[in-house]
């Protein structure tokens, strides 16, 4: 008798399920919540669940209010006045952690589950990935199951989940139609757009540590799908930002670069589509020289593209680039020549020496590369700190650095030698997904290189890092830095799986997140409806309403009519009985009630009298006296079956 459920107070019956639904809703957010909120939630729910088991006391209202005050205080410390999606999520989590303490009434339970729905909603504005989409369905499924549980006194969590699944399955067709047909608008209503918190990526300033920090980050920056073949690895320099200004220590993007007036033309165009993950900044990534600007963006004279607003949702753009070296027009190269008046004297001297031995810019470049190759430079992500003259210190003392150091030193040497040079930040290469024929570019592919201007060739790309660590360019960072740990079948298998998933989710996202005004219009116009006209709009509207009514109507028809019109067994048996008598020539007349009919039969066939009377007696009792005895129904049907008038 130890298993008597004494500990579950009636009102607490639903507590575990409500907490479960909230946990499911909150799970995808764990990475975005500060640690203390996660601990807070775990502690509250843990205490509640244990208190169910061990009859621990519950805090009273005053304590809960105190807790809420603490929680909000903590939020203020963590987020300050930055009211954003993360702060909102934090607030919801703190509420969701405390709310289950008070679920004594139906109202409290409903509100607790609504909180779970709210948390599901917040996840949507962060990501539109396939994973989150599938997870959303799971979360709605669980929360609705709990909702059914608290609204149906006889339900178990299992039956609640089952019904939740059925309702969801029945709702999905309607959802799909509404999703496709609901009119989309261009732009936004209030001009508001989401502000994701500072994500990793480039900043407008290139200083030591920027890139090495990124290299450890495996987040996807963008995916690029090429119309034809993917160009060779030596072409996959994804330009994002150009650093013109050097202050002696770090490089900056120049604000004075004018917008482009004439789009470049050239040979060997490459067309590709980029699915850029939101990064909260404005730059877009392209290969060498883009031939046009995507919507909502602007191109500058240094061939960088900037979005008009920070990229806060996934951005898709299709673009054509020219990869051939640019013979280019001469524009204001002054910003690419600027150097601080003082500092790094040794480097300036080195630049002078190198320039003295070179007849052309190309020769100078080769000599400088040769210098870097031969003087014992090492590629490392953990270089020693540099002093006030960082270029000197790097070139003549530490000789240890990564792309940033090499690019910085190289550009400095060029400028000191009087050759215009600039640093370009972006990504190098990317991983080819064999399932989807596209590249996945991650933060770890971050790279900086140099562009040097010569009168003969225009802007040329030079990658000084290549001189020191050629593998960095051909094989990616991980190969250069760590021993590739492969070989294991599991690792290979896992990699395959990851690629497969990425291919599926990318094509889903490309369709799903990209579905907006234009796509909708194209789709609807393919159906022969003109969206621009009033008639078209009315057609779409009536299509939506029609689908709703049709779905509901069909459902009502099939689900309700079928059982409602089903005749009961008594009636079926009685009709069988009448049919038997009809066969021997005594059909029941429509105005004959059962008793009249029995009398009539008894008169015509006295031999059948006892059987007929017994059957009619049973029928009358079942039909008119509302007897609900199932054994009696059985008996009646048996009698009818045994009845033989021949």
């Amino acid at each position, binding site marked *: 008798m130890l298993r008597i459920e004494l500990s579950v107070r009636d009102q607490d019956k639903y507590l575990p399920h409500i907490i479960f639904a909230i946990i499911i809703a909150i799970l995808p957010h764990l990475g975005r919540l500060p640690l203390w909120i996660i601990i807070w939630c775990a502690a509250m729910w843990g205490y509640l669940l244990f208190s169910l088991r061990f009859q621990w006391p519950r805090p009273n209202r005053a304590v809960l209010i105190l807790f809420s005050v603490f929680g909000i205080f903590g939020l203020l410390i963590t987020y300050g006045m930055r009211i954003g999606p993360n702060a909102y999520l934090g607030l919801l989590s703190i509420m969701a952690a405390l709310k289950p303490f008070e679920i004594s009434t139906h109202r409290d339970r409903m509100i607790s589950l609504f909180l779970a729905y709210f948390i599901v909603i917040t996840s949507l504005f962060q990501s539109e990935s396939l994973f989150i989409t599938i997870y*959303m369905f799971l979360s709605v499924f669980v929360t609705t199951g709990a909702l059914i549980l608290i609204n149906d006194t006889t339900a178990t969590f299992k039956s609640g989940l089952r019904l939740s699944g059925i309702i969801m399955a029945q709702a999905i067709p309607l959802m799909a139609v509404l999703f496709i047909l609901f009119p989309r608008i261009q732009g936004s209503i209030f001009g508001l757009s989401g502000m994701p918190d500072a994500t990793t990526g480039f900043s407008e300033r290139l200083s030591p540590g920027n890139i090495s920090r990124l290299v450890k980050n495996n987040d996807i920056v963008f995916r690029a799908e090429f119309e034809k073949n993917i160009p060779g690895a030596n072409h996959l320099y994804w330009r994002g930002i150009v650093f013109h200004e050097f202050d002696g220590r770090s490089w900056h993007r120049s604000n004075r670069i004018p917008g482009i007036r004439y789009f470049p033309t050239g040979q060997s165009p490459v067309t590709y589509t980029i699915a850029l993950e939101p990064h909260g900044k404005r730059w877009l990534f392209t290969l060498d020289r883009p031939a046009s600007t995507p919507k909502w963006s602007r191109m500058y004279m240094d061939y960088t593209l900037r979005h008009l607003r920070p990229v806060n949702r996934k951005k898709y753009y299709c673009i054509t680039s020219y990869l051939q070296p640019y013979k280019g027009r001469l524009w204001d190269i002054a910003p690419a020549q600027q150097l601080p008046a003082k500092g790094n004297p040794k480097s300036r001297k080195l630049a002078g020496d190198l320039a003295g031995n070179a007849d052309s810019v190309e020769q100078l470049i080769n000599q400088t590369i040769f210098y870097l190759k031969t003087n014992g430079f090492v590629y490392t992500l953990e270089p020693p700190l540099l002093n006030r003259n960082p270029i000197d210190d790097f070139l003549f003392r530490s000789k240890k650095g990564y792309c940033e150091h090499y690019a910085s030193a190289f550009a400095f040497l060029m400028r000191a030698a009087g050759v215009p040079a600039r640093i370009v930040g972006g990504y190098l290469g990317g991983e080819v997904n064999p399932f989807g024929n596209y590249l996945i570019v991650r933060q770890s592919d971050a790279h900086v290189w140099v562009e040097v201007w010569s009168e003969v060739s225009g802007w040329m790309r030079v990658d000084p890092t290549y001189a020191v660590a050629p593998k960095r360019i051909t094989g990616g960072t991980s190969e250069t830095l760590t021993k590739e740990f492969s070989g294991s079948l599991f690792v290979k298998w896992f990699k395959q799986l990851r690629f497969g998933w990425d291919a599926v989710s990318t094509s889903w996202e490309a369709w799903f997140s990209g579905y907006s005004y234009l796509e909708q219009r194209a789709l609807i116009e393919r159906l022969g409806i003109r969206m621009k006209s009033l008639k078209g709009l009315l057609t779409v509207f009536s299509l939506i309403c029609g689908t709703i009514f049709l779905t509901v109507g069909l459902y009502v028809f099939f689900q309700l009519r079928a059982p409602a019109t089903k005749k009961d067994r008594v009636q079926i048996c009685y009709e069988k009985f009448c049919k038997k008598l009809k066969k021997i020539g005594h059909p029941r007349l429509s105005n004959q009630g059962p008793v009249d009919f029995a009398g009539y039969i008894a008169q015509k066939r006295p031999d059948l009298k006892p059987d007929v009377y017994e059957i009619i007696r049973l029928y009358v009792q079942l039909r008119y006296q509302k007897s609900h005895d199932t054994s009696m129904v059985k008996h009646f049907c048996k009698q009818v079956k045994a009845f033989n008038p021949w």
Partner: protein
Amino acid sequence: MKKRFWFAPQDVSLPIRLTRNRIYIFPTVYGILFLLVLLGMLIGSINYNNNLGFLLVFLLGSMALVSIIYTWRNLLGLNILSVTASPVFAGETAVFDVVTRSDTLQRNSIGFAFKKEAHCFETVFAKNPTTVKVTAKTKRRGLHLPGKLTIFTRFPIGLFRAWSKLNIETSVVVYPKPIPGPLHLADGVGTNSGKKEIQTAGVDDFKGLRQYRPGDAIQHIAWKSLGRCQGLFTKQFANEISRSVIVDYTMVRADDKEKKISRLTDMVIQADRMKIAYGLKLPGKYLQPDKGHRHRHNCLKTLALSDAED
């Protein structure tokens, strides 16, 4: 023909089947809150052009829409077969047995309540009649009409409530509230022999058996003879027959009429408990001395419905 308001309850006679035109449906407070949240989300989705937001809004909206059908279907076709209640004393809570049956499907969490009374939830299983105990508080003696019976459901997700209000012609006899006190009785043989108090019924002599009559006290049934397949007999005791008393309205001293009736009620109960034959005399009404449950009920009902004046 009297015109009826849309929401007005309908006078119905049992048994009744809840058909389409008897069922109303409306969002609950939570349903309205839910719809407001969906509206807010829809605006947010439009603003941010967030397709996943759209998807969730339409998923939840469609699920709410589907749930309406479930809610409605949960009531549709429910049969109310009978509504009856056993008598209670004034001030007690009457329990009505509402017998329901579902011909087609199981109906989860159906609420039953009389107007302004507590509700109860019950699941009506398919095919078999289910008896639901619905309570109604009583205040004063007489025939209590519990009023409209509301049958409602918020199944499955509590966002919508379907209901049907039925003005069922049912009532419960409410006995007067007994006021305890001594048992003043008039002798059944001669009414003029004056008052006397009876302390105990005493131990009586067994006299013989007679044919069972419905209403006989269960303690007096001769179970042994039933066991011998001789039928039901009731034991008779010597002094039961000789001693019959009258509970008389005129002999009760109390401030007012209601108190008198309450005192008489108490006396009837006491006399019944003592298993003596008793009669009831009210102004203009006389019940012959008798005993048993039926007689007790007749007496108490007479008291409940009495409109006697001094």
